[in-house]
Structure formats: structure tokens, C-alpha cells
């Protein structure tokens, strides 16, 4: 074979490999699934979500059904002393007005997870649009936009959220907006920084020099490189949002009875901790486990998407 033919063959081979090459995301998925903590986190989280969705089918009790004969009863299997023990399907016992705790914890999961996902989505949309605009336009527009974020950042936001919640009578919709409005700032900063640096990278220049279309540059080079940190941050925002929601609910400013969330259940449990510790233990356990799952997944994603760390 001639030398020219050989080079041509190698070139074709290289191109072939580039075309069929493993993308960042395939690599990342493989790395993520090798991470035991992250996989466990995903499995447990899926189980909790499924339980929350199927709550009405799983429990034979309604979340607001009151049984006056079973007030503050421990579950049947409770190993410690308790004034009364509930039999039947009251797996987690009953609360201070005789409602089944198991089904209430699952309904709490519905609210907490819904708030977590929706408010994160709100912050994602606002943050990505704002951050990408600032990063892409650059210059004076960027300076002004980010200065606004800096000012908002220095506000004690949680106090504004509290004022909002108190003043507008614990409106559920407003809670999403208020929490989303708090967490989009960090998202905007991350996206802006990523866009700014991605825009100027050599590989973008190289791609342009190689004649890749602008659309190709954006979809194959900029988005994958900007998306990594954003995905990680989204995973870590959900538990943050769940925490803010339960914080508000704990202070009595969140969701209203008979609906419930983990924060409300924990607040109730904290009040009766001496007489009925199970009212605190189970909601706290569910929330704790869920938060851990998100953190494990987030850490796993960060390791998977950022090969530089290796």
C-alpha cells in the first residue's frame, strides 16, 4: 500500500472514530452507574417517588380520615413504651387527632417533592435564560445584568420569602414562585460563567476553523459543556428547595391542614416528641433519606461529568 493511501486510510479511520466516538454523556452515564452511592440514591429516590404517587392505592386510610379511638397511637411493632398501640395497617402509628401517619408521610412526600421539582424548574428556566443572555451578549449588558444579581444576592432573601408567605396567606402557588425566585440567582451565575468561558475556548475556535456550522458548534460543543454543571446544580437545588419549603412549613407558613408536607409533619412531631416520638421519627427519616439521595446523585453526577477531577 502506498504512503498516501495509508494516511488516507488512517484519516478515514479517525473520522470514523470521531463519528462513532463515545460522547461525554455516554461516558458520564457509565461513570455514574459505577458510583454505588449515586445508584443507591437513584433507586431509593425512585422508590420514594413511586410510593408518593401511589399513596392513595397503597394505604387503606385517607390522609384526612380521623379515627377518634386511635389518638397518638404508636405502630403495633413499636418496641418502646407507648400509651396505646394501633393495630391494622397503621404502619407508622397515628397522629394527635387520630390520622394514619403512614399515608400522611406519603402525602407529605407528594407536596415536598412537587415543590422541589417545580420550583427547581422555575429557577432553571429563569436562571438559564438570564445567565445565557448575559454570558452570550457580554460587555456592558452583562455587567449590568450581573450587578443586579449581585445586589439581589446580598439581600437576606429568606426574610422576604417569609414576609411574602405571611402576607399573602400561605398561597401554595406563591410558594413555588417565592422559592424559585430565591434559587435562580446561583443558577444564573453558573450558566453565565459557563457560557462566557465556553464561548472563548480553543475547541470552539477549532470547530469553527474546521467548518462546523454555528448550529453544530452550539449543539455539539457549547451545550454539552454548559449543561454538565447545570445538571449537577439542578440535582443539588431540589433538596435545597425541599428544605426551604419544610422550613417555611415548620414555621407554620407553608401548606395548610389537612394537606401536609414533611415540614408540617416534623413540626407536629417536634411538639409531641416526649409523648409520641414516632411522629417525628418517620417524617424526619423520609425527608433525611430523600435529601441524602439527592446529594449522592448530585455528587455522583459531578464526578461523572467532570473528568478533570480524576
Amino acid at each position, binding site marked *: 500500500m502506498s504512503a498516501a493511501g495509508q494516511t488516507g486510510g488512517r484519516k478515514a479511520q479517525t473520522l470514523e472514530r470521531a463519528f462513532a466516538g463515545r460522547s461525554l454523556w455516554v461516558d458520564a452515564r457509565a461513570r455514574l452507574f459505577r458510583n454505588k452511592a449515586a445508584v443507591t440514591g437513584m433507586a431509593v429516590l425512585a422508590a420514594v417517588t413511586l410510593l408518593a404517587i401511589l399513596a392513595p392505592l397503597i394505604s387503606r386510610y385517607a390522609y384526612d380520615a380521623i379515627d377518634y379511638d386511635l389518638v397518638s397511637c404508636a405502630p403495633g411493632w413499636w418496641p418502646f413504651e407507648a400509651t396505646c398501640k394501633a393495630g391494622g395497617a397503621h404502619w407508622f402509628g397515628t397522629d394527635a387527632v387520630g390520622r394514619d401517619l403512614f399515608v400522611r408521610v406519603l402525602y407529605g412526600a407528594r407536596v415536598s417533592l412537587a415543590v422541589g421539582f417545580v420550583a427547581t424548574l422555575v429557577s432553571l428556566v429563569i436562571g438559564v435564560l438570564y445567565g445565557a443572555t448575559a454570558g452570550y451578549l457580554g460587555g456592558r449588558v452583562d455587567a449590568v445584568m450581573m450587578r443586579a444579581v449581585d*445586589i439581589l444576592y*446580598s*439581600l*437576606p432573601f*429568606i*426574610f*422576604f420569602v*417569609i*414576609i*411574602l408567605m*405571611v*402576607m*399573602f*396567606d400561605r398561597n401554595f402557588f406563591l410558594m413555588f414562585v417565592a422559592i424559585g425566585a430565591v434559587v435562580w440567582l446561583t443558577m444564573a451565575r453558573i450558566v453565565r460563567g459557563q457560557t462566557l468561558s465556553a464561548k472563548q475556548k480553543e475547541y470552539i475556535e477549532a470547530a469553527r476553523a474546521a467548518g462546523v456550522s454555528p448550529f453544530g458548534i452550539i449543539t455539539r460543543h457549547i451545550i454539552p459543556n454548559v449543561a454538565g454543571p447545570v445538571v449537577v446544580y439542578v440535582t443539588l437545588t431540589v*433538596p435545597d428547595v425541599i*428544605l426551604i419549603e*419544610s*422550613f417555611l412549613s*415548620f*414555621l407554620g*407558613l407553608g401548606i395548610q391542614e389537612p394537606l401536609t408536607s414533611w*415540614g408540617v409533619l*416534623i*413540626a407536629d*412531631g*417536634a411538639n409531641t*416528641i*416526649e409523648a409520641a*416520638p414516632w411522629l*417525628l421519627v418517620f417524617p*424526619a427519616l423520609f*425527608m*433525611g433519606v430523600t*435529601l*441524602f439521595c439527592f*446529594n449522592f446523585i448530585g455528587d455522583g453526577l459531578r464526578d461523572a461529568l467532570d473528568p478533570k477531577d480524576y
Partner: protein
Amino acid sequence: MIGYAFKRFLGAVPTLFIIVTAAFFMMRAAPGGPFDAARKLPPEIEHNMKAAYDLDKPLLVQYGLYMGRLAQGDLGPSFKSKDFTVAQLIGIGLPVSVRLGLAAIVLAAAFGVSLGVWAALRQNQWQDYSVMSFAMFGITIPTFVTAPILTLIFGVYGINMFGRELTLPVGGWNGGAVRNMILPVIVLALPQIAILARLTRGSMIEVLRSNYIRTARAKGLSAQAVVVRHALRAALLPLVSYLGPAVAGILTGSLVVEQIFGIPGIGRYFIQAALDRDYTLVMGVVICYAALIILLNFIADILYGLLDPRVRVS
């Protein structure tokens, strides 16, 4: 340096102004007012009360009046606690909150930094893993869960330690007695210990890899001297800029902790005042918090510039 400090200080004024304005109009936009009692007042009396507090004037006039008084340092009277001015109420509550927060910060700094350094020096050994698991725990579990659980363990059941019954008070302030402060301070400090341990570990590991540490080792310094005199100084620098967020975190936590442990600080005022539509008291507490956060961010920036000559250039 002084010029920079002055510029930063001037920059804080508009921020504070925006906060005050936003808080003022948000509260007034809300339904209800401070004199909506369960028992409806006769219209004449309600009118007189409103007139006494200027609440019958147009909103913008009220805003002007409030800002005018604020500029003279007058936070106005409390609408609900009628015998007190807002300044007096904050004067009672603030020392309590500050004492609690300061104790928590000192505890968090001491434990967080030592744990972080320990983990960094034993990187990828069991010490490192246990510190990092603890940190994960501290970051994930919120104060309103740790507070009741610690109360149950140390306050209700009590624990026999060193042959002595160790039961701590579960609530109340008792004039700031140490026994009353232990549980709330630990609860407030836990998340900060966790975050500080993570930050310290990260920056310590980075510093230990740098060339001048290798030089220090190569010239035969003891391991202790390398860590304390050379590595720690550089590793702790990034922590200074965490001072602002740490204080914000502790303020947020104090809302919960003061509520749970029944501590008479300004965090409790804030929630109650917001529920009561006690406009002036809410404003007073917001201003107080905002000023505190801005001040500490300011101090952190200045400190950073003083400690790290590299920052001063830009």
C-alpha cells in the same frame, strides 16, 4: 486599601435602601393591617388609631415619613407592643441573638477547621471518610430535625456520662446561662461545622500539593511546622470569604432555633411581628438583619484584602 473600603461602604448604602424600600411596600401590599383584631373596633376608634400612627395618609407619604425618621435613626413605635418602641424591643432581643450566633460561629470555626484539617492530612483514610460522612450528614439534616432529636436525647431522656446525670434544659433562656445555651448553640453550629469542614479539607488538600510545601518539607521542617506555619495559613484564606454566607445561614437557623428552644431573640419577634402585621417591628428586624449581613460581608472583603496581598492589586 482605605479607598477600597470606603467605596465598598458607599456601595452598601443603596443595597440597604433597596431592602428597606422593598420590605416597606411588600408589607403594605399585603391584605390586613395591624389593628384587625378578632373583635371589630368601632370605626371612630379605628380611625383615630390609624391617624395616630399616620396609617390614614397615602402610602407614598407614609413611606416618606418613615424614611425621614429612619434617616434620624428612629425606627418608630411598635404597633402591637404598645409600651415599647421598635428600638427598645430590638435592644432587648438583639444581644440575645448575637450571643447565640457568636457562640455558634466560634464553635463552628473551631470544630469545622480542625475536622477539615484532620481529614485533609488523612486523605482517603478512614478518618477522612468519617469526617466527610459527618459533614454530609450535617449539611443534609436541617436544624428543625436536629433540634428536637438532640432535645429528646439530652433534654428528655438525659444521658449518663462520666458517671454523672447529664440532663440539659430543653428550653428557655434563663438570662443566657451556659446550660441553656449548649443545645441551641450546637444545633445552630452543626451545619456550619459541616460546611467549614468540607471547605477546609478542600483548600487544605490543594495547598498541601503546592510547591512551597514541598520546599518546606525538603528543607527538613517538622510535619507540624509545615502544617501549622505554612499550609494552614494559606488554606484558611478562602474560608474568610465564607464568613458572610455563614452569618446568613446562622441567622436563618436562629429563626428555627429561637422558636424551638423558646429563646427571646429577634428571630422570634420577626415571625410574630409578620403574623401580627406589626409593620414597624418587621421593618426594624429586617433592617437589623440586612445591616448585619452587609457588615459581615464587608468585613470579610476587607479582611481578605488585608490577609492576601494578591487580592489588593485588582
